[in-house]
Structure formats: C-alpha cells, structure tokens
C-alpha cells in the first residue's frame, strides 16, 4: 500500500521557546516537513500578543519560558474566547528539568507533551497524532482542553485502566505519545 501523503504546505505554526538554538532546530524540522508559514516567539507575552492578532493552526510551546511557564501559556490559550485558539492543537515541549511536573503538564490542556530531546520523527508523529486524534474538547470549572481519558484508543487499549503489567505493546504505526503514556502510568 502506498505511503499516505500529508500536506503541510498551508499549515501555519507558532513555536514558542526561549532558547534560540532549540527554536531554530524545531523550525528547521517543521520546514523540512513542508511547513512554509512559521512564526516564533521567545516569551509567553510575545506569544500572547501574536496569537491575539494572528491565529495559527498549530502551537508548539516549550514548558520553560522566561516570563511565564509554558503551562500558563497553554492555560491562557484554552481560555480564549476565539474558538480557533481555544481548540487549536498545542504541543508542549518538556525537558527532563520539567518532567517532574507531569501532573501540571497533563492539566494545562495541551494536546500532547513531547519530551525533549526529540528527533524529527517524534515531532512529526506527535503533530500527526494531534491532528488525527478525535478526542472531545472539555470545558469545566477546573479543566479546559482535550479529553484526557483516551476514548479514541479503544481499538488498541483495554477498556479498563492500564497498569505497567497489563499495558499492551505500543503499536509502532500509531503515533507514539511518550508523555501520554507517562500520564496513564501516573494515573494508574
């Protein structure tokens, strides 16, 4: 069967990262995927100002910013009145200095969390997974963001809560989600 094609040509993305080198590498990867419209912000404030004027199709946010945390930025995005922002796929990049904050990452409303360092393959798969995932978007007094309960994994996961012992082997064809896996373990 022919490998499916995905068209990044008209996708626009905002990458928010305080580290110029990391920002450059992420943007180069996106460019390689075919994404032509990219914006960058070095701080949460800069990102907020930009997003108020220019909605994008994808937002990639580093968890550690200079003026606020990436979690706070995602939290802000999820509470915007504009649906295009509120429902926008948001990926949170988290290094091992932030992996201690798994619960915060889970609760801020990001679609997925990508553990740094990451390869182009991991970035690509997470973008595709974020786009393909048909999780509902929840709004409650305590949480706004994609459903964290993984209804769409019924085909590959047991109906009950999984533990390390009975977790199914990951499907290599399904886009892997490292942090989601961690979150499931945290909840188990």
């Amino acid at each position, binding site marked *: 069967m022919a490998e499916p094609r995905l068209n990044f040509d*008209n996708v626009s993305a905002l990458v928010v990262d305080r580290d110029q080198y990391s920002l450059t590498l992420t943007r180069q990867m996106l460019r*390689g995927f075919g994404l032509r419209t990219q914006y960058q912000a070095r701080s949460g404030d800069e990102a907020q100002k930009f997003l108020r004027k220019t909605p994008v199709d994808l937002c990639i946010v580093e968890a550690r910013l200079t003026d606020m945390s990436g979690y706070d930025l995602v939290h802000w995005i999820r509470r915007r009145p504009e649906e295009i922002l509120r429902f926008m796929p948001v990926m949170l990049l988290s290094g091992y200095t932030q992996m201690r904050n798994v619960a915060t990452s889970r609760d801020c409303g990001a679609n997925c969390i990508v553990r740094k360092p990451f390869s182009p393959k991991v970035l690509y798969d997470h973008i595709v997974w974020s786009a393909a995932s*048909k999780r509902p978007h929840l709004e409650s007094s*305590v949480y706004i963001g994609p459903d964290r309960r993984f209804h769409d994994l019924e085909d590959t996961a047991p109906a009950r809560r999984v533990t390390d012992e009975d977790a199914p082997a990951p499907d290599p064809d399904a886009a892997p989600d490292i942090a989601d896996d961690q979150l499931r373990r945290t909840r188990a």
Partner: protein
Amino acid sequence: MSAVKYHWPEPRLRTLLTEPGGKTRSEALAGAAEALEECRDVAMEGVRESLGEIEAIVEAAGARDLTRDEVFCVLEHAERLAGVATPFQWPVLLQVTASLGLLGDALLDAAHRPAHPLAVHARAVRWALDHAESAEAEAGPMLAGLEKVAARYGAAGAQAAGPAA
C-alpha cells in the same frame, strides 16, 4: 458537582494536512534531515556555548559543593546539548549528555553536590564534540567510565536512558 461541556472541534490542522499533495512520512523526515543540515554550524555554536557554560560552573566551584541552582543550570545546558545531538544523530554525544542529565538530576536532591563528576562529564562532552559522529564502540571505555561515575552518585542506568528516537 461541576458541569462539563463537550465540544467536538474539527481543527483546521486536520483539514489542511489532508489536502491533496504534500509528502509521505519518509519524504518529510528526509526533508527535515536536509533542513537541519543547513543549520549544523548554528547548532555547533549552541553546543560549544553550553559546554563553555558547564565548564565555567564546575571550574568556579572547585572543591566546594555546587548549589542546587548551579546544578539546575548545568542540567539546562545538558538539555540543549542533547537537543542538538538527537536530531543530528550523534550517538556518543547523546549518551554522554544522557549520563550528564541523569547525574545532574540525582545531584539536585543529593546532600552533597560535588563538581568533579560533572567536570568529568564536561570533558567527555568535549571529546564527543571532537568525535561527533564516532561509533559507540570507539567511545565504549569512556562511556563505561561515565556510567560508573554517574552510578556512584545514584544515577544508575545512564546508558539505558536515551532520548525518544
């Protein structure tokens, strides 16, 4: 009990990705590798800058223990090193930075935070930079040594802790 509203949004990203044309996954990944290659010099500059910062921190500490903030700073620079080594697929630098990351993480909560195990790792990073694309076999003894150093400070499993490939 709080009310929960459910929405079933159709993100524009999904629509755009499925438009005709585009690239296969293999083509996209090849494109990314090519694009990364264009910024190799910039990446190397970042790596050298971070290594310089790590060396300065451990040198300034000398024989005293590092503060938690200093170790955290080393960790952040280690993160940048790994962030470059991963997309460029430099196996030795990757393993060294993984070990450095685990060591730093273990030292954060340790009673003592000596600088010398980090200094050993900084030297290893410098070696790995000069041999960026070396085979792991060539660096085997050095990596084994680092694992022992890291394990001594409670960071066992350094070699097993690679990044997401």
